[in-house]
């Protein structure tokens, strides 16, 4: 039996802005098994990134983790001191950000950036760090690593920068890696390369991966299980295969239908409306104003996440009464 590396229970992260309290993450629970690739899917503003930042406890001000449990290998991260967390970040848990051109410090060359991370967590002699840096850069597929490590981030292309960012995140061989839309800012051709690289590295370093994205294509490729978030809540959790074939939540169906496909001659379906204002979220099920199956109960009662099949959870009052179309497997 594989145990859970990460166990999030009832996580609530609110942002206390002048306009009001933004409930960016409101009672989210899911877990991550060892060596698993989990997808965190949702529209912009659904709380995907904030969830990742909450696990690392680097939620920017005025955000604050209000409640919940984040167990990493059995320890509750929310109860650790800031010092202890600093030691964990980068060495146990790492994150890759969306925009590689702004996630590297422009004033240091690549070698310095990687060396800094290594030295922050390990005591290694200088000659060895250099060897390690070259090794890392070679692992992420940067040619002529020995020359290129002396260059600055602006001298790298977007894809190469993201490789550097990946190398930096992997410098201390973390066991859990968050990838926050790692390919959104890259060319499509480079995207595939970076995703393949992430997959290879995941196997090589024995990592568990949380892939954050809104791109259903990437999710299908990269993950074995998916958590669908909407407006700071979990809608559905299922194995990737199940979710694509038999979505049980109207939002998941809508997400799948919004993916452009060549083999179906139909117009692209959009989800009507916008993601709700999280200062005053809709009552009951947060998706109900945009849901075509919504009934009165949806307005009044918050749906709970229930296991409807083994490993398939859904939070919807109406799941039994509606039939949803998934994507046919080919």
């Amino acid at each position, binding site marked *: 039996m594989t145990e859970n590396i990460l166990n999030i229970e009832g996580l609530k992260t609110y942002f206390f802005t002048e306009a009001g309290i933004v409930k960016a993450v409101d009672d989210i629970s899911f877990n991550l098994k060892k060596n698993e690739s989990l997808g965190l899917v949702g529209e912009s503003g659904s709380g995907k990134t904030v969830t990742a930042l909450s696990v690392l406890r680097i939620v920017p001000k005025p955000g604050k983790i209000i409640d919940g449990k984040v167990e990493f290998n059995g320890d509750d991260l929310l109860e650790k001191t800031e010092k202890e967390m600093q030691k964990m970040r980068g060495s146990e848990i790492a994150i890759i*950000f969306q925009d590689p051109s702004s*996630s590297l410090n422009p004033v240091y060359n690549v070698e310095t950036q990687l060396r800094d991370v290594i030295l922050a967590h390990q005591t290694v002699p200088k000659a060895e760090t250099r060897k390690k840096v070259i090794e890392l850069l070679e692992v992420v597929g940067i040619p002529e690593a020995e020359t290129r490590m002396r260059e600055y981030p602006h001298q790298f292309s977007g894809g190469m920068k993201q490789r550097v960012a990946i190398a930096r995140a992997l410098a201390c061989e973390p066991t859990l890696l968050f990838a926050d839309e790692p390919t959104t800012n890259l060319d499509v051709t480079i995207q595939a390369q970076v995703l393949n690289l992430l997959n290879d590295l995941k196997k090589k370093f024995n990592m568990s991966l949380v892939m954050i994205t809104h791109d259903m294509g990437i999710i299908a490729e990269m993950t074995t299980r998916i958590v669908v978030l909407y407006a700071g809540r979990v809608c559905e959790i299922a194995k990737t295969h199940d979710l694509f074939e038999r979505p049980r939540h109207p939002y998941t169906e809508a997400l799948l239908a919004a993916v452009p496909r060549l083999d179906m001659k139909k117009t692209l379906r959009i989800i009507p409306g916008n993601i709700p204002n999280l200062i005053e979220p809709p009552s009951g099920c947060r998706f109900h104003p945009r849901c075509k199956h919504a009934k009165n109960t949806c307005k009044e009662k918050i749906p709970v996440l229930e296991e409807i099949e083994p490993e398939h959870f859904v939070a919807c009052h109406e799941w039994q009464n509606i039939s949803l179309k998934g994507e046919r497997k080919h």
Partner: protein
Amino acid sequence: MASNKKGEKIKEKSKRRPASQWAVAWRRFKRNKAGVFGLIIVMAVFFVGIFGSFFAPYPARPNKDAIKPFYKGDVRKPPSWLDPEEPNNFKYLFGTTPIGTDVFSDVIHGTKYTIYVGLLVTAITMALSIVVGAIAGFYGRWVDNLLMRISEVFLVFPALLFILVFVRIFTLTVGDPFLTIPIINIQIPAGLTIVVVILGLFNWASNARMIRGEFLRIRELEFIEAERALGASNTRIIFRHILPNLLSSIIVVSSLTIAYAILLEAAVSFLGFGDVNTITWGQILQENFSEMRIVWWAEIFPGLAILLTVFGFNLLGDGLSDALNPRLRD
């Protein structure tokens, strides 16, 4: 063929050691004629300041030989190249003063004090403004509010008035005109040092606000979040990641602050609040002011020295700002 050619080119390029940002900035600076002119002036000022006592015709005051009439009778001699009675055109290039000193020697000996004032005031100012700006910009909230309100108080003060009052009060406490610093055995002018410290304490506000602004900007950049996610502490983020990104701004502002400090010290001395034991350029202006209509040369030449030096530092600062922040050029 073409691809082969291209391939070779790429290889050739990657063999070259990548140019550091300083080399790039220097290349850009060299193209800026005004900046280079400023640098030449500044270097000349430093040269005269350091080696001046070797080629000044007369020793520095308070040495008795400095006050030596050139002729019996009237010691107010115009510059030798304008003086029909003086066959040697180089005997007293800038003329002589009513008390019989050589203006040329006085200006040369004053140069080292000018450098002393410029550098030390700037060091104090920058140290203060970096500390205040960093704390205010990084920690924000009430700390920021408090520090910025204090800086506003300093900005709305009629600074010169306060400087004059404090200088007068504190110079009264001076016993020996020169203090010897133990261990390194360097003599520093006591009265002038008091002026310098007070100038430094009164000038930090605007620079601190600039640095605070930069901190606010850089603090929000993604690479700071990335560094935090890799386990960097607050101190590390401030010193290792934000400050180096400000280095170019700090260099530019320092050079402009030097110019301002020199001007301010000249004003203080000219108003008669300076240290009579250290003959700075402002001090020469002050000594000969009452007879300005006759001995105009004793005002013009030290005045030109101040003008040229301040001009040089300003040009240098502008040149540096163009070279280090190419975005600001248009």
